């Protein structure tokens, strides 16, 4: 069956599904507390590891779910949108984003949930994103070559390192469990922060 939209459902459903999915996404994020910037940066200062737990759990659940569905033929994983591995641009972008994360306390997805519940710093952060995108677009000719460089293509990690994707998922699950346990121990030792 694979991804339904291009073949089984028509393209017009795409935007409706986007809204519904977005609502579910926003609801879950907000209920997990991700509209709070102080909760989000807790992972970097050791007083609240919710980001790590939600992030990894979501990635593992979704990966295992999709792999099972792919195995049963319900979805074609190769046809899903991956992120082309433009190594150096992604690394540079990620570092800049990391700095933005600890400065502003949000990431675009969570800042939108903050907007939903009326946090003005969320509004300002989103305004900042618009500003950053605008500056980048205007400066694009300077970055154009770098932006398109070192493109390994839409390759998956198991493909790149030539390992079995299922064993890779086992490995990631184990790493995640260890990370959850270790951060639990760390949190017990850090002075708790009221927010």
């Amino acid at each position, binding site marked *: 069956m694979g991804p339904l939209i291009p073949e089984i459902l028509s393209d017009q459903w795409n935007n409706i599904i986007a809204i519904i999915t977005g609502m579910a996404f926003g609801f879950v994020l907000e209920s997990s507390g991700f509209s709070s910037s102080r909760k989000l940066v807790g992972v970097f200062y050791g007083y609240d590891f919710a980001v790590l737990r939600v992030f990894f759990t979501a990635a593992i659940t979704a990966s295992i779910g999709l792999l099972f569905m792919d195995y049963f033929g319900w979805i074609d994983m190769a046809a899903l949108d991956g992120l082309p591995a433009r190594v150096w641009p992604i690394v540079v972008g990620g570092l800049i984003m990391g700095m933005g994360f600890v400065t502003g306390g949000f990431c675009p997805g969570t800042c939108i949930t903050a907007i939903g*519940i009326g946090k003005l710093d969320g509004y300002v952060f989103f305004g900042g994103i618009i500003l950053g995108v605008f500056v980048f677009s205007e400066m694009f000719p300077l970055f154009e070559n770098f932006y398109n460089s070192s493109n390994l293509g839409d390759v998956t990690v198991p493909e790149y390192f030539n390992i079995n994707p299922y064993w890779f998922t086992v490995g990631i699950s184990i790493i995640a469990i260890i990370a959850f346990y270790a951060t639990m121990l760390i949190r017990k030792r850090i002075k708790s922060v009221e927010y």
Partner: protein
Amino acid sequence: MMDIKSDKQHIYWNPYLGGFLLGLILIITFFFTGRGLGASGAAKAIVTQTVHTVAPTHTENNAYYADQFLGGKVPINNWLVFEVIGVVAGAFISGSLSGRVFFRVQHSPKITPRKRLWFALLGGALFGFGAQFAKGCTSGAALSGMTVLSLGGYIAMLSIFGGAFLFAYFFRKLWL
């Protein structure tokens, strides 16, 4: 009007439950549309559409803008824009149920709200800038990328969190 700040406003879900549900949402999204979630793409669409409305020739001359008009596409008619609208709505619903909806600036007691807002602006600018290099943010590149085991997704996740850990020490006064 009744007191909208309720007692349970700081009660959040168990993060593992949140993560599990988020994972299910991702599966459903991928199953229906073949793509994952995201957020920074909506900002890009908004910027492009605005610039296009104000100065159409400029968008034709700039390779970054022009790319989004290929094949007669309208930038604002972007899947992510609709998704973001949904996120606002979903967050509002969830916040209302828990009494968290009211205007405020959330800041550490050690800094002023104004300082917080300036840093939010700076953080947003950095994030928007960086997100263009990586073609995604934590939800779009890192989370959705990791779901399909994409190399780019894992690299993005490692760089974003790595970068944040690197710079966390310098900005600790904002939060602790």
